[in-house]
C-alpha cells in the first residue's frame, strides 16, 4: 500500500492506493473467441431514463464484446420482526431470449449474509466471490465477522474504480449483525450505497415495489412475509418480460440463512384464480 507523504500543506491529501487499483480495468475481460461457451448467462438491467445531467457516457470498450450485454431481473429484500426476507426470480435473459430459466440470483456470502444480484450475472457472481473471500480474510485477521455495513462499504469501494466501464452490479446485502439485529444494504456499481428496510432492484422492481409498499410492516409473521415476497416477485414476473420462471426465497435470522424450495407460482395462482372464478 503506497501512501503519499503529507507535506504539511492543507491541500495535500493522503491517497492510499493499492497497486492493483492503478491498473486500467478495461484490460480485464478479454474473451478468447475460440473458446465455446455453452452457458451464456446475463441478466437485464433496471430502466434507464436520460434524466440526470452528466450521466456517464458509455465508453467504447477497447476490447470487442462477444454479444451486446443487457440486463433484466426482479429481486427484493426487506426487514421485519422475524429477520430479513430476500426473494428473486430465476430468469436469466440475454437480449430477448431466455438464456437460463433456472438461474440463482441470491448468492450466500457467508452463514449470516446473502446477497441478491442484479445486472450482469457474471460480474455479480465474481464480485460476490471476491467479497466472500475478503470477508473471510477479515474474519481470520480480526477474530470477528465484519458487519453488513462494513461488507457493503467494502464492496462499494472495490467497485468504485470500475465506474464508467461496462461493469454492472446492483446487489442488496441482507445480513444479521453480531447476533443482534438484521441489516439491509443496497450497493450498486455506480457507487451508491444505501441502508434501508426495503429494497427492490431490477427491471421488474417498480412492479414489486407497488405490491410491497402496500403490505410490508414490521409486525409481519414469517409466513405472511414469505407470502408477500413471493406475490411481489410473481406480480413483477407477470408484467416484466425480462423476469419470470420460478421464485427463490431466503430467510435470514440470528441462526443464519435458510432457503425455501424453489417454486413455480404461475400454475398455482392461475389454478387458484380459476377455482375462485368457477365458484362465483
Amino acid at each position, binding site marked *: 500500500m503506497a501512501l503519499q507523504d*503529507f507535506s504539511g500543506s*492543507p*491541500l495535500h*491529501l*493522503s491517497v492510499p492506493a493499492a497497486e492493483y487499483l492503478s491498473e486500467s480495468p478495461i484490460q480485464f475481460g478479454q474473451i478468447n473467441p475460440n473458446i465455446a461457451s455453452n452457458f451464456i448467462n446475463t441478466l437485464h438491467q*433496471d*430502466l*434507464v*431514463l436520460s*434524466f*440526470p445531467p*452528466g*450521466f*456517464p457516457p458509455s465508453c467504447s470498450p477497447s476490447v470487442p464484446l462477444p454479444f451486446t450485454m443487457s440486463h433484466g431481473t426482479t429481486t427484493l429484500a426487506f426487514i421485519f420482526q422475524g429477520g430479513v426476507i430476500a426473494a428473486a426470480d430465476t430468469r436469466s435473459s440475454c437480449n430477448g431470449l431466455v438464456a437460463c430459466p433456472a438461474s440463482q440470483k441470491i448468492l450466500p456470502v457467508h452463514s449470516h449474509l446473502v446477497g441478491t444480484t442484479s445486472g450482469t450475472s457474471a460480474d455479480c457472481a465474481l464480485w460476490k466471490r471476491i467479497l466472500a473471500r475478503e470477508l473471510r480474510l477479515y474474519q481470520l485477521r480480526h477474530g470477528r465477522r465484519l458487519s453488513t455495513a462494513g461488507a457493503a462499504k467494502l464492496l*462499494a469501494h472495490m467497485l*468504485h474504480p470500475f*465506474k464508467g466501464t461496462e461493469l454492472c452490479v446492483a446487489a442488496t446485502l441482507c445480513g444479521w449483525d453480531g447476533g443482534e439485529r438484521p441489516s439491509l444494504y*443496497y450497493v*450498486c456499481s*455506480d*457507487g*451508491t*450505497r*444505501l*441502508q*434501508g428496510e426495503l*429494497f427492490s432492484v431490477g427491471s421488474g*422492481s*417498480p412492479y414489486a*415495489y407497488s405490491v410491497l409498499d402496500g403490505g410490508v410492516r414490521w409486525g409481519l409473521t414469517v409466513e405472511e412475509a414469505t407470502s408477500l415476497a413471493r406475490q411481489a416477485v410473481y406480480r413483477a414476473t407477470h408484467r416484466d418480460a425480462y423476469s419470470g420462471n420460478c421464485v427463490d426465497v431466503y430467510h435470514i435470522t440470528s441462526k443464519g440463512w435458510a432457503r425455501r424450495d424453489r417454486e413455480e407460482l404461475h400454475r398455482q395462482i392461475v389454478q387458484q384464480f380459476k377455482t375462485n372464478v368457477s365458484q362465483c
Partner: protein
Amino acid sequence: MEYLIGIQGPDFVLVAADNVAASSIIQMKQDQDKMFKLSDKILLLCVGEAGDTVQFAEYIQKNIQLYKMRNEHSLQQRYGNDLFPTPYHVNLLLAGFDETDGPGLYFMDYLSALAKAPFAAHGYGAYLTLSILDRYYRPDLTRDEAVELLKKCIEELNKRLIINLPSFSVRLIDKDGIHDLEKLVPVGAK
C-alpha cells in the same frame, strides 16, 4: 432533482437538504442524510451523481480527520475547500463557523467553481427559490426569520416543482456547533 439550500446570518448559517435517494424513476430511500460533518462547526452538503457524492464527501471528511489527528488542530474553514478539478460530478455547499471569520457559506460546483455567498442553492429547485431569497434576504436576519425564509422556499418547491420532495433535513451552525432542527415536511405532502 436533489435540492440544497444555505442561508447565512450575522452569527449563524442555516442549511437544509432534501432526503430522497433516487435511482432513475424510483425513490429508493426517503430519509437519506446529505450533510457530512467535516468538523465540529463545518458541514458539507453534497449532491450530484449517484456514487460520487458519498465517495467524495467521505474522502474529504476522512482526510480532514486525518489532518486533525496529525496536526492536533482542525482545518480552518477556508482551507476546507479543495480547489482542483476532480472527475467527481458533485455540487457542494460548505457551511461553517470560524472563530476569527465568523459564519461562512461557500458555493462549489463540479467544475470547481467556488464562491462565498450570503445564500445559495443547488438543484432544479434553485431556479425557483433563488429569487425568493433575493427578495427577502437581509444580512441581519434572526434565526427565526431565517427559518421562516427557508419555509417560504420549501412551500414554493412544493407548489411548483414537478418532482415531489417529501421532507428536508435542517441544521444550524453557530459558535456553539451544529444543531439539528426539526425536519421540514411541506403541507400537503403525505
